[in-house]
């Protein structure tokens, strides 16, 4: 029930090619991550929609293989 940060980044890069991704493995167990992701794709979306887009990008792994992913989504500054 764990997932490497490389794997997470790979999923996110596929869905958000322009994204700047900052990922921290909070306790070093490949199971508790904090991700900050900045992408144009979030423009005009509500926060809930932005997070749903990220969960979608993780293709069902969130809540199953990935237990704890603290998420922060951002739109790049102009």
């Amino acid at each position, binding site marked *: 029930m764990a997932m490497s940060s490389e794997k997470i980044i790979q999923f996110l890069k596929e869905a958000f090619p322009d994204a700047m991704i900052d990922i921290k493995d909070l306790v070093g167990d490949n199971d508790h991550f904090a991700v900050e992701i900045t992408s144009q794709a979030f423009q005009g979306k509500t*926060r*809930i929609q932005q*997070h*749903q887009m990220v969960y979608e990008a993780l293709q069902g792994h969130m*809540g*199953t293989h990935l237990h704890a992913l*603290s998420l*922060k989504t951002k739109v790049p500054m102009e």
Partner: protein
Amino acid sequence: MSALFDQIQNDISNHDVVLFMKGNEKFPMCGFSATVVQILKRLGVSFKAIDVLQDMELREGIKAFTNWPTIPQLYIKGEFVGGCDIAREMYQSGELQSLLKDKGIPYTE
């Protein structure tokens, strides 16, 4: 499943603030649930806590209902507000307080 969705719909319609969480407000069983409880308590908001650990069907059903893969889930006036990250972000920025004010739900500053 639809009886369960009806029950969820009832719960979020009949209570201004509902938190689907792991454990209860006295004994949260997960750090994310505990964080949201703490925020609501700090704001002095009364809320209905629903412990999804008591009901496996609800635990999965609420994820499908909201289209959100994780617990906790905060509902205000029947609308999904977010999970732990969004609730915390909104609390820190004051957006959560504005939302409560807009919805006419009493809270303390």
